[in-house]
């Protein structure tokens, strides 16, 4: 698995080991994408909430965004990788009042050991998971991973000092802590969407990891998103991604081409060379297609130092005017402003991604289970308690749309569907949560 979300046979990755740097998080994005694509969702923002942090990624038309600007331990990494933004908001994130009196959640984390106070392993500091217990989004009788009971009294004891410091009830202190964690996640999504000229409202939020489904609806609401999808078997999404990813190679070359009437021919020539190089590379791995390709030009106004990626969908119909219009539109999306006049435009790089589709067709769906009877639950939100219907994952019926508040308990995660949202489980076993039109 490569950081760019594509697989390669061992023979290919051996020659280019750096490509595997972020294979784990990339597999999560690819797994989630493949599973929800079965339900027709291809424009998605993935949200993976773990114990110490949350990862988010934007996927356009089935293609995860890539970046070449990444640093690890202070060193730049310039191989293309899936653009995942991480924020220090996870289940173990510690909630505290700082010395200026501001409420904070993370980035310090209680980790797994001692972990949140409710784990009963000696943790005394309040965490996001403890907050979920207090406000009931994690039901009090739940067993973590199916086996480990949680100690709600320890969670409440840990939040006592915070509630006192802010002169609120325990439940309100817990809810405020979750709002801060939600806001940290929202910020991470904004960094990779609104700040790049993308509108989150054009996407579905796909939440997984232990805490993703707990935060999803409120995060979506804050961004104006109206659809949340929880992929079936959300706990094994990364492993699934490893199984179903396409085989992918990238080629990029620095080519400084002035945008004029001759540019389209030159671009076609450069892309032709890239195509040949990629086919040769695949052939060396005994892969012969059929291949699909995505073409990207890195463009800028002459004199700038940063490029804007501009896709080339129609290679045959490529013209100077078309390129200029596409670049200016992309530029305006990011910067909200286009310099007037005739500042020259240039192409700085020509890139191609070539994929051979995976032949594995594995679905993650759960077996059909007869609809069960929910038990009553309750969740504290917006300064009051709400009664909920609490289902076990398998017992929520397929194809029926029900209004929130609903809680779905699973072995690895818990979903909370608030009031004003509805829930449906589709035939691929994905849970679809939608904002109900305001009445």
């Amino acid at each position, binding site marked *: 698995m490569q950081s760019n979300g594509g697989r390669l046979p061992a023979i290919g990755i051996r020659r280019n080991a750096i490509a595997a740097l972020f294979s784990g998080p990339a597999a999560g994005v690819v797994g989630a994408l493949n599973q929800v694509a079965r339900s027709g969702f291809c424009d998605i923002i993935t949200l993976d909430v773990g114990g110490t942090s949350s990862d988010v990624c934007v996927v356009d038309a089935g293609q995860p965004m890539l970046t070449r600007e990444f640093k690890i331990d202070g060193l730049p990494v310039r191989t293309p990788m899936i653009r995942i933004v991480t924020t220090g908001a996870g289940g173990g994130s510690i909630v505290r009042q700082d010395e200026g009196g501001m409420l904070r959640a993370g980035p310090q984390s209680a980790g797994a050991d001692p972990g949140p106070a409710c784990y009963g392993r000696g943790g005394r500091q309040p965490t996001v998971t403890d907050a979920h217990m207090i406000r009931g989004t994690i039901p009090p009788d739940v067993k973590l991973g199916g086996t480990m009971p949680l100690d709600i009294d320890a969670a409440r004891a840990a939040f006592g000092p915070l509630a006192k410091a802010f002169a609120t009830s325990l439940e309100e202190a817990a809810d405020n802590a979750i*709002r801060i964690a939600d806001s940290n996640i929202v910020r991470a999504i904004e960094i990779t969407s609104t700040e790049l000229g993308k509108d989150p409202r054009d996407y579905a939020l796909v939440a997984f990891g232990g805490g993703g489904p707990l935060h999803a609806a409120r995060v979506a609401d804050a961004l104006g998103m109206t659809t949340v999808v929880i992929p079936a078997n959300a706990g094994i999404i990364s492993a699934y991604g490893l199984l179903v990813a396409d085989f992918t190679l990238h080629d990029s070359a620095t080519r400084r081409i002035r945008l004029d009437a001759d540019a389209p021919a030159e671009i076609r020539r450069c892309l032709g060379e890239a195509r040949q190089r990629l086919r040769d590379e695949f052939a060396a791995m005994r892969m012969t297609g059929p291949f699909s390709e995505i073409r990207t030009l890195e463009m800028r106004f002459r*004199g700038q130092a940063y490029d804007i990626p501009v896709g080339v969908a129609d290679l045959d119909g490529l013209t100077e005017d078309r390129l200029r219009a596409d670049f200016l539109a992309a530029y305006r999306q990011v910067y909200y402003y286009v310099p007037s006049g005739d500042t020259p435009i240039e192409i700085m790089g020509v890139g191609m991604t070539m994929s051979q589709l995976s032949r594995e067709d594995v679905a993650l769906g759960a077996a059909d289970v007869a609809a069960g009877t929910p038990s009553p639950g309750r969740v504290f939100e917006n300064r009051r308690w709400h009664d909920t219907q609490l289902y076990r994952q398998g017992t929520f019926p397929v194809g029926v749309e029900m209004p929130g508040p609903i809680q779905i308990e699973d072995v690895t995660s818990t979903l909370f569907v608030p009031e004003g949202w509805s829930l449906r489980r589709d035939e691929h076993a994905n849970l679809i949560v939608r904002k109900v039109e305001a009445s």
Partner: protein
Amino acid sequence: MKLDAAERAIIADALIACAREMGEKLFRSAFSTVVREARDASASVLDAQGAIVAQADLIPMHLGSMDRTIRPCLEAFPRETWEPGDVFITNHPYQGGQHLPDIFIFTPVIVDDQLIGFAATIAHHIEIGGGALGPNMFATDLHQEGVIIPPTKINLARDWNGGPFERLFRANIRVPDQVIGDLNAQIAANSVGESRLAALCRKYGADAVKSAMSDLMDYSERRFRSAIAAAPNGTWTAEDSIDDDGFTDEPRTVRVRVTIADDEIVVDFTGTDAQLRSNLNAPLSSTISAALSCLKSVLTEPDLPFNSGCARAVRFVVPEGTMINPHYPAPNRARMEVCYRVFNAIMRALAAPLPDRVIAGGYDSTVSFSLSRLDGDSFRVCMEVFGGGYGASSTADGCDAVDSPLSNCANTPVESLDMEYPYFQVCEYSLRDGSGGEGIHRGGLGFVRHYRILNDDVQLVFYSDRFRNAPEGLRGGLSGQPGGLELIRSGATLPPVGKYTGTLRTGDEIRLFTGGGAGFGTPSS
């Protein structure tokens, strides 16, 4: 309006994120190497009165005094005269600005007729006209240093984009495409900030956003004051000097008296030398930014959001007519050298009460290095700002070969210079062994840059400090080595200098060597 704990934290975070995004977009859409690579630019969010609410952590020098910079704009143009599309622009050192290349743009954010605040950016522009190609080291008044923009209100639709203000300005600078391009990047960054702030108001309500702004300043003030209160009460004095006054070899001295009284600080510069005839003066805004940067870095944790709240806990006494608060029309292009001595003097004063929070003297000089050329009818200007080694601290060696603490610029990659400038090449870029002062912890190293000139008629302007006076160590740490520049012509190396203006020809070489920081603690033999 009273916000709950979560709303207050969430909106505060969004305000800081807004400033950070503006800064990021400013670099990414800029045209000159000094903004796009060296990142000599900054962004912030101001409230409706012009107080600093949030800023991107970029150039410390730019930001501590932005509230002083906008004030004359607001006084000159009352609210009822504003029209949609208006922005404020200024670079006037004697009306709240710093030096002429630093141009400030303020964009009002108005939601439903209510003024919420301002999106503000500043960039160091690569050229600003004036009496020389590159910084005018012989200027004896401000007018010889470049175009002066007094606090002015322009309308983007009417006066910019080919309008009269842009035409007048363009005609008075030598590399208009880069400078106008960078100003456009500032305008773009401001409009990003404007739309983010407006969106926040739509989401939470304008009253909530305004309350969060004032809460955020109160928050920083509380944290700043509690940091001051944790330091011992008392009064300490210190001084530090620049090598010379720009025309003779006489050193000139900054003197400071710092008093900590419970949760307040008084910084009194009485006794500092008089204003200079050369461009080494620092206008008041620059002095205050330098002083606040030092206080913040010594006293507080790095995650304290800097804003006008912090400044409420500090009182300044800066006598008029000194080189750190000069009268018009004193020139001040090279203000940073004396700003660093302001920084060093306060750091030394605080070494007595807070020995574990200060660092030893670093090279702490701005090395301004510009190579320019007139090619036919078009000018090319390459301007870079370098530093050297940091001073060591009680816990670590000084950082090697970085820009000095007040400017925080990145270096311009040699590859970028190669693509941009055909008239010189960089032959060597290396750490300068032995330049850091020994100690239990060693001072940071300076670096060497060696250039070869590839055309005739290349104008070199170079100024720096700590060419004669090396930085001093703390607690027995040894001094760092001074820095300078050697010109190699026809195989002969000329004596090193600390400042230079002259015309170079094909085959000339320049060896620039910057100084190291001083050590901390007596070194073991």
